[in-house]
């Protein structure tokens, strides 16, 4: 008979069950499993992580603002998830390849996205905001969970190529209910594919609390599939770096997949189209405000005397500069001409579509005299 399984009863317990290195007030505690993974991190490294998070929060705020001003069709804020995204993504090596969902602004930022990359898709200009090959990040994925299988297939290719790479996939707590995400674990396990699953449990799937998907720790599912997993405090950037390094090391050394559940919180609405006041309480939000991931690492650095006012100001300035560029790029975007709708459907000519294209060209041309 399987051992007793106990559901998660409340948020406090929820977080107790997660690995941690920094307490919410910024004090560092010993973590037997994780410490060795960040033994090499200097204060400067931690400051860089902090700076990334500050910049990311600003990018996110700018995305929201641009949407409110009608410049973007939609934006999916990642406020509150900065430690998870920056921590895990900064642990990657350049050659690793990422399959994200739609909320991973911090991940594409860490992979080197240009300011325009953040807005191109949300503005409705193109299907993908960034160049997948140069960032080594697949396009943002909207179909919940679909990308997890892509990561596994990519990882299978890595294994066949004998390459020193890892495929990484990000997905939400809601996504864990999709068949695809479960099949991804099964295929990854069966193939011992070098892939790391990163579940961002931000407690909500639009209006559904995570308890609709699972009343048990999500990380607890992976071991049943033969995949070692870790449940980590997703608002602790050091724990995120460390656990991701553990997972990457595991996958890179030929041991097959690893799984991380980062326990964090979506501070904003699901997207700019959402009104979270309809379904969640101020209390809950307030509680999580007290666990802010940026404040935590800031307090840590401050306590170490490793974050001066000047350094903080520099980070803010970098954030402002990024936001300015993002805005300028966004406002300067030129929509492609009408016939561009036909571009890129096929790699090779398709007679049916060619005909439609020329008919539509003739149709457009018929207005030329008129206007």
């Amino acid at each position, binding site marked *: 008979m399987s051992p007793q399984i106990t559901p998660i009863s409340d948020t406090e317990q929820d977080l107790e069950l997660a690995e941690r290195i920094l307490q919410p007030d910024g004090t560092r505690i010993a973590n037997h499993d994780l410490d060795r993974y960040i033994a090499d991190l200097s204060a400067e490294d931690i400051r860089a992580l902090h700076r990334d998070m500050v910049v990311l929060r600003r990018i996110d705020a700018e995305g929201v603002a641009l949407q409110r001003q009608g410049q973007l069709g939609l934006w999916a804020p990642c406020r509150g998830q900065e430690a998870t995204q920056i921590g895990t993504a900064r642990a990657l090596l350049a050659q690793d390849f990422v399959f994200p969902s739609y909320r991973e602004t911090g991940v594409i930022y860490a992979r080197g996205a240009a300011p325009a990359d953040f807005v191109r898709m949300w503005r409705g200009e193109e299907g993908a905001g960034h160049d997948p090959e140069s960032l080594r990040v697949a396009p943002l994925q909207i179909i919940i969970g679909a990308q997890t299988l892509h990561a596994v297939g990519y990882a299978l290719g890595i294994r066949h190529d004998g390459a020193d790479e890892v495929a990484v996939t990000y997905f939400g707590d809601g996504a864990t209910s999709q068949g695809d995400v479960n099949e991804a674990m099964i295929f990854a396990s069966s193939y011992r594919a070098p892939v790391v699953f990163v579940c961002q449990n931000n407690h909500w*799937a*639009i209006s559904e609390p995570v308890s609709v998907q699972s009343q048990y720790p999500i990380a607890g599912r992976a071991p049943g599939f033969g995949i070692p997993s870790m449940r980590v405090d997703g608002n602790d950037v050091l724990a995120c770096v460390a656990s991701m390094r553990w997972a990457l090391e595991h996958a890179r050394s030929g041991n097959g997949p690893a799984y991380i559940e980062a326990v964090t919180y979506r501070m904003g609405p699901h997207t700019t189209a959402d009104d979270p006041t309809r379904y969640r309480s101020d209390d809950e939000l307030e509680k999580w405000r007290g666990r802010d991931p940026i404040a935590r690492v800031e307090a840590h650095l401050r306590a170490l005397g490793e974050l001066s006012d000047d350094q903080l100001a520099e980070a803010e300035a970098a954030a402002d500069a990024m936001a300015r560029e993002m805005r300028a790029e966004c406002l300067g975007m030129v929509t492609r001409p009408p016939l561009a709708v036909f571009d890129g459907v096929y790699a090779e000519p398709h007679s049916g579509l060619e005909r439609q294209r020329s008919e539509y060209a003739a149709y457009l041309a018929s207005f030329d005299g008129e206007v």
Partner: protein
Amino acid sequence: MAQLTLGKALGAGLRQAMRDDDKVVLLGEDIGRLGGVFRITDGLLDEFGPTRVIDTPLAESGIVGTAVGLAFRGYRPVVEIQFDGFVYPAFDQIVAQVAKLHYRTQGRVRMPITIRIPWAGGIGAAEHHSESPEAYFVHTAGLRVIAVSNPEDAYRSLRQAVASDDPVIFFEPKRLYHHKGEVDLDTALADSPPMGLARVMRTGTDATLITYGAMVATALDAAEAAADEGVSLEVIDLRSLSPVDYDSVAASVRKTGRVVVAHEASREAGVAAEVIASVTERCFEYLEAAPLRVTGHDIPYPPAKLEKFHLPDLDRMLDAVDRVLDRPNSLTGADA
């Protein structure tokens, strides 16, 4: 009579269906506390409680598959698929189970499942939020397919769909959710015209413009514009895509002899192809010109900034009307 938006009319239809029959249960993502991302189920959780308005885990195959199980038990599930583009994970359950169980059991097991799909484009949405997948379901034997274009039809035909002992795929044009119209809330279902009849929205004599969903409004605008040029268009709202009410359609075509079929969905093997093939079969000797299609291109739905170059609009409809009437048009390269 009440003035309701299409969205509110759908909500009213669901409420009435749930009051009429306590076997009606709703399943979907975010349909409870939130009332659905389009607020169609707003207030229903409060009225009927969480055993009848069920927020499901995030998995469409799971939603439809469990609806099948509920139907086995005598329930009458109404599923909300959050957006058109998210119905595909449930495709297997719909095509291989929902559509076939009645046939598989020679009628012993009924599948009175309604699958509501907020549908189609024109709202500047992100990818996968503007799909027009109706042809897939029309091609699937065992399903009925409804597409509504106005609040009155929405209210009535949703109730009819829920009351039907057959599975119904129910398409709701999301760009019309906020459009208002008169709704007769009082007529009993039994006294309503049966689900599945087309409707002549405007009579005309020169050509028949056939469409459904949000394109009906565009077609009516086109007819208005055509009238200014002295062209008289008959506009038909199909309302039911499976079955199609070919009696009404054929009657119109026999009168006008000219046909244009419009939809947002892409063209190859779409619903317009079906309508044209069937109309040609039935009315060949009445046709004075080749029936034409005005449809989305055979491309994936484009990014929002380009969608207006994909969606049929008034001008594209009028150009097709000109072509079917042999008036100067884009292909003759004429008038400009």
